[in-house]
């Protein structure tokens, strides 16, 4: 009995010792800057989680091979500790806690999706850990007064703003009649708020305002109303499922609407899954490879896309591009801060003003990027049925002319 107790206390002492020695493994070891990230490698966000991870890894390799990060006259290399958050917000918050208090990580990269970022942000804020995130666009992230959260992407309420403005412009500056259907999650509801703002600003009228429940993949009822009321614009946002369902049912029910604007077409691989039926759909995107922004590491969008395809075997979705941009922001901030002090790095991040291949980056006091407009692309197909996404708005970046109004089904 006694011996057992002694062995037990010995083991627990050893365990305690080991656990404290783990804590000393921290932020900057030797010539490495260690970043932490909880990311969805399994679960329902796993495809976009992997895009995010690939984007991070690509940028880490590129920055390391091109000289690394120079701080205080010394060169450092990036390294990332990943944990799989299983697409679960609670798990993500736990892992953030673990990365910071056990692994001693002092700088974080964001997870995938607004929901998970929302779960992690309070933790990083509590410990004063600067986090650059690339995949949480929900407006509510930027109204909480977080000081250590920085997002390289435009907030959700701006996603389809451009679409409404374009429609009004094409209507001779007069307001348009809008039909909208949104899923009831934080992101889509933010997109909806953006549309409400845009409608108010342009004097447009919202004639159908439907909410799509998340367990449903049928929006026939909304589309019947659209057929009856004939709006000028139909806006749909309900993640990948919403985009796929909308295009399928619009094609099946032959709903004619002059403009169809959506989110998540990229992730839905709309043109691949639906082919010609997806033609003329307008999609909001954070980034497109044909944009002409430039930086020293990836050169420009086309080069990035080519390099990414070479390494990972598929065309980079914007989720990957923005994740790569997050690392460029971190590198820039470390070098300007010339220190690993969390507060100094935070202040340097807040003062970021740079151009990357992904777009200009400048943070508002809330942490969102205000220097990069959203782009709209339109699915365009050639006569052979091969479809491509072409940027049509804003005009400055357009590589093709917007086709408006969408031809009627009877004429296609």
């Amino acid at each position, binding site marked *: 009995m006694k011996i057992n107790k002694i062995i037990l206390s010995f083991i627990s002492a050893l365990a305690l010792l080991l656990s404290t020695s783990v804590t000393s493994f921290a932020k900057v070891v030797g010539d490495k800057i260690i970043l932490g990230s909880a990311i969805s490698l399994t679960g329902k966000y796993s*495809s976009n989680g992997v895009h995010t991870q690939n984007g991070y890894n690509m940028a880490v390799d590129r920055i390391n091979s091109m000289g690394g990060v120079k701080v205080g006259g010394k060169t450092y290399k990036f390294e990332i500790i990943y944990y799989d958050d299983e697409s679960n917000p609670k798990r993500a918050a736990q892992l953030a806690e673990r990365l910071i208090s056990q692994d001693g990580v002092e700088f974080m990269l964001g997870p995938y999706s607004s929901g998970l970022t929302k779960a992690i942000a309070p933790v990083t804020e509590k410990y004063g850990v600067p986090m650059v995130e690339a995949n949480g666009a929900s407006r509510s992230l930027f109204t909480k007064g977080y000081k250590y959260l920085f997002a390289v992407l435009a907030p959700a309420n701006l996603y389809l703003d451009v679409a409404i403005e374009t429609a009004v412009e094409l209507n001779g500056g007069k307001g348009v009649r809008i039909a909208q259907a949104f899923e009831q999650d934080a992101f889509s509801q933010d997109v909806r708020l953006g549309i409400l703002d845009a409608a108010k600003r342009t004097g447009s009228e919202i004639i159908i305002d439907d*909410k799509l429940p998340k367990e*449903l993949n049928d*929006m026939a*009822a*909304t589309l019947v109303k659209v057929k009856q009321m004939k709006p000028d614009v139909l806006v749909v946002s309900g993640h990948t*499922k919403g985009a796929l369902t909308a295009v399928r*049912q619009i094609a099946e029910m032959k709903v004619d609407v002059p403009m169809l604007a959506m989110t998540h077409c990229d992730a839905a691989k709309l043109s691949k899954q639906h082919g010609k039926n997806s033609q003329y759909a307008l999609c909001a995107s954070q980034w497109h490879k044909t944009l002409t922004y430039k930086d020293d590491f990836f050169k420009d969008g086309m080069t990035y896309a080519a390099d990414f395809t070479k390494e990972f075997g598929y065309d980079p979705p914007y989720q990957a591009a923005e994740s790569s941009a997050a690392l460029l922001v971190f590198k820039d901030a470390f070098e300007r801060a010339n220190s690993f002090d969390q507060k100094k790095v935070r202040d340097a991040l807040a003062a970021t003003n740079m151009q990357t291949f992904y777009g200009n980056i400048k943070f508002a006091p809330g942490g969102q990027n205000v220097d990069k407009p959203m782009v709209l692309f339109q699915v365009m197909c050639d006569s052979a049925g091969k479809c491509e996404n072409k940027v049509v708005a804003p005009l400055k970046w357009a590589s093709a002319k917007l086709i408006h109004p969408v031809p009627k089904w009877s004429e296609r």
Partner: protein
Amino acid sequence: MDFMVFQYPMISVQACLDGILLGILFALIAYGMALQWGVMNIINIAQGDLVILGGYIAYFMYLYGIHPAWGVIVAPIIMYFVGVGLYKLVINKVVDRDLFISILATFGISILFMQLMNFAFGADVVLANSGYGTTFLFDSAVVLPNSKIFSAFISILFAICLVIYMKKSKLGRAIRATAQNSRAAKILGVDTEKVYAATFGINAALCGVAGALISITFTIHPYMGLPYTIRSFMIVIVAGLGNLPGVALSGMGLGVFEEFADYILGTEFRIGAVFLLLVLILVYRRFKLSRKREYLK
């Protein structure tokens, strides 16, 4: 509240037809659930996941260039064996236990299936295009995708086949005997073990058919199974066990009710309205039941 549906009579027609076509498809899934609930006294939480798995079979056929409609033949065959395998592995251990154990076990299977499908097929939402086109009725005021009509037609076909099979075949009679009284059936020489396995297999096969149809009409995703479980559970609750025409009727009724709730209350209250209806029906059933009991006293 929006009463557009009454102002334009054609929208009512559209809502009814949409509801009926949707309801028939749900009724097929509910039919399988009622069957194995009646025979084995198991509420299968993994019902929806079996449906989604069937959908993936059709989707993969589509990916390899085979028309997904063939999925309604291939999916049930594969799913039958999945069902039998599942029975041999897990269900046979819970079949004589109380309902709670079986719910826990099938809940576990459901989680396992979701994760495995996510692992194997990825987390993308996918669909199979049938290219069936559209039917226009009443001067194109009512629009019906042919894929939905096809789904309803196939569902009815399978349901009829199954009813006949249950009535005429030896196994069908054995299944019905086991449902009525498993001990008596056993004494009279029915191999109940085999009957249970076959019942679970048939249920899985029906789920396979429904899944293939759903991949053609809607979309599939590894985590989308639960709504189908809940819907079929409700249809069975409303119809009662062992009442197959009842299942079909309550499926269609529920579909129509849902569509009208969608138009009148708004899409966000669609599921809510269905649940409200469920509560009302349960309360009503209890009320009727307690009256009967008093009468018996």
